[in-house]
């Protein structure tokens, strides 16, 4: 806490706090939405009332989580306008489009059909009700899609051109923004990870009931859907995680280097499976990067490029602009010192553009506009005091990445085992260790949340110091506010969101406890 002394740090802490709390609600909505839609589809096709009872049980938990989580994301938009006003102006045209679509189309779609989902059981046809349930699930995912597209643009700003007259980036291609490699991999990885969480949630809640010997048939029905969604989710999350790693290696190599604590890259680069970073290591000294590590040969080259022989640059290589192509030839990438020079030049050209604009010097305007946009990719480096400032927090990025991967690996095995026990229940029933399995299932719920949050920390901390990759560092994106002003709202949000989380968890737990004592094979309301 001693380091949180300025407005940038407090604003970042506030944004991180609200984003993490918001994200605790979102993935369960996305994952459980798909699960209840599948359950209702089974009910629609079989007309088996027990499936209706099961659908309604999970729909209640979905409703609680949706109601408590809804609108928590709007706080992030408040923060853009107040704490990050330079950023908001700088990107308004591009950031606004996906957020507007999210607000107008996806959220209203979700909100409209959720009413039919809860109020319409006795009032609309089963077919229409089923459609409403699917549209609620799809609407939630579409809502997430546009937010993630906006986030992906911050990681990989494409499809835009800077207008020095308005000081704004203007969208030149909506589809370049929406379908950038970063957006595609981020959307798939994130939404599919939510399916994983939904599946684990169902498995965990059913395990809790089975520990108490309640509603065995309901649990078996639920697990058939939950475990399958979880398995499909976690396998596809792993595959899209691989795609994400390739995308990050290509467009955010510094983030990849921080994720692996890699300071000096190599051909046939190994990957650190587990390790303890050397706290004395900095980008400018020759200390060893690790106190202890277990590495897998070729691992990082394969992860980053799918080529075991490829060169993967480390932090020092990236700063110095050194890399190699697949034939081993040295590539003259642009060093950070050069980028800083270019960035400063662009800044002075923008100042000159303003003078030319006031003087009405059209020739100078055209020339400056062309040179500004030619070099604009390195604009943000002009604000750095030294190249090392562009290195993210390596320990935080490294450890959260490895926690995410470790829990993710556990979830693959765990969910495959859960699915196996669905079809081979005798392997579990009556065994002395069954209760330990059920306890593990319950523990898997918070572990999956931790995994999900770690994924976001890797994505966001790993791209520091950039608010927009290469274009705008945090220190110029921020508004001219006092740190104490931001501290007040930080603590207000800490209290508010903690209260909401406690309400969410306690209402969900109470509902599970109360409903599990009733017969969940029968429709009661």
């Amino acid at each position, binding site marked *: 806490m001693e380091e949180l002394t300025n407005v940038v740090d407090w604003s970042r802490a506030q944004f991180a706090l609200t984003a993490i709390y918001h994200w605790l609600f979102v993935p369960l909505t996305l994952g459980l939405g798909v699960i209840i839609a599948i359950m209702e589809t089974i009910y629609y096709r079989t*007309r088996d*009332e027990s499936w*209706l009872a099961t659908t309604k049980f999970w729909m*209640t938990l979905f*409703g*609680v989580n949706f*109601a*408590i989580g*809804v*609108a*928590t994301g*709007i*706080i992030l938009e*408040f*923060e853009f*306008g*107040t*704490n990050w*006003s*330079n950023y*908001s*102006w*700088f990107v308004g045209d591009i950031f606004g489009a996906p957020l507007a679509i999210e607000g107008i189309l996806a959220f209203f779609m979700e909100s409209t059909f959720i*009413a*039919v989902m*809860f*109020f*319409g*059981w*006795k*009032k*609309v*046809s*089963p077919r*229409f009700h089923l459609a409403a349930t699917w549209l609620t699930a799809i609407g939630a995912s579409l809502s997430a899609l546009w937010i993630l597209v906006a986030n992906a643009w911050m990681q990989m700003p494409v499809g835009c051109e800077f207008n020095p*007259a*308005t*000081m*704004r980036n203007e969208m030149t291609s909506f589809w370049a923004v929406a379908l950038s490699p970063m957006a595609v991999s981020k959307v798939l990885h994130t939404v599919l990870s939510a399916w994983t969480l939904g599946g684990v949630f169902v498995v965990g809640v059913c395990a809790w009931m089975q520990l108490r010997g309640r509603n065995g048939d309901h649990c078996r029905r639920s697990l058939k859907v939950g475990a399958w969604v979880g398995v499909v989710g976690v396998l596809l999350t792993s595959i899209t995680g691989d795609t994400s790693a390739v995308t990050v290696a290509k467009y955010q190599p510094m983030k990849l280097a921080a994720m692996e604590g890699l300071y000096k890259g190599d051909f046939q680069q190994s990957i650190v499976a587990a390790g303890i970073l050397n706290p004395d290591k900095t980008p400018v000294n020759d200390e060893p990067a690790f106190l202890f590590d277990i590495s897998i040969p070729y691992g990082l080259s394969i992860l980053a490029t799918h080529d075991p022989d490829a060169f993967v640059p480390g932090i020092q290589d990236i700063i110095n602009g050194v890399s190699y192509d697949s034939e081993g030839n040295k590539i003259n990438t642009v060093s950070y010192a050069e980028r800083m020079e270019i960035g400063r030049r662009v*800044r002075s050209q*923008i*100042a000159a553009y*303003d003078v030319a604009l006031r003087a009405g010097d059209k020739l100078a305007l055209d020339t400056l506009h062309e040179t500004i946009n030619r070099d604009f990719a390195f604009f943000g480096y002009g*604000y750095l005091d030294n190249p090392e400032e562009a290195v993210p927090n390596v320990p935080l990025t490294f450890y959260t990445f490895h926690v995410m991967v470790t829990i993710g690996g556990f979830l693959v095995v765990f969910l495959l085992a859960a699915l196996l026990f669905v079809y081979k229940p005798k392997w579990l029933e009556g065994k002395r260790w069954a209760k330990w399995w059920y306890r593990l299932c319950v523990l898997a719920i918070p572990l999956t949340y931790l995994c999900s949050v770690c994924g976001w920390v890797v994505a966001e901390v790993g791209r520091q110091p950039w608010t927009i990759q290469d274009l705008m560092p945090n220190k*110029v994106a921020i*508004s*001219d*506010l006092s740190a104490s002003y931001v501290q*007040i*709202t930080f603590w*207000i949000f800490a209290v*508010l969101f903690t209260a*909401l989380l406690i*309400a969410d968890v306690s*209402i969900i737990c109470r*509902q599970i406890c109360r409903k599990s004592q009733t017969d969940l094979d029968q*429709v009661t*309301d």
Partner: protein
Amino acid sequence: MASTFYSLNSMDTNETPRLRGNNTLSRIWFFYLDGFRSMTLGRTLWAIILIKVVVFFVIVKLLFFPNFLNSKATDDEGKAEYVRHELVDDP
């Protein structure tokens, strides 16, 4: 919206009472009205949503989250000028 009333347990029957109301608007109105009236847990959740919305939009937004640039300029030209000063002249 379908105008047929389906009992929960009568998907295969011919039971077809209609939604309350004579036209689309009144049907939508009664759809929501009946839905809200029959809520149990939903009442608590709606109370939380309403409290949350009031706290977020009335207290938090109005008191703590004004649009910063609106305090610096009244039009887009002025805001661009302010941001240019922040990013170029005095970063």
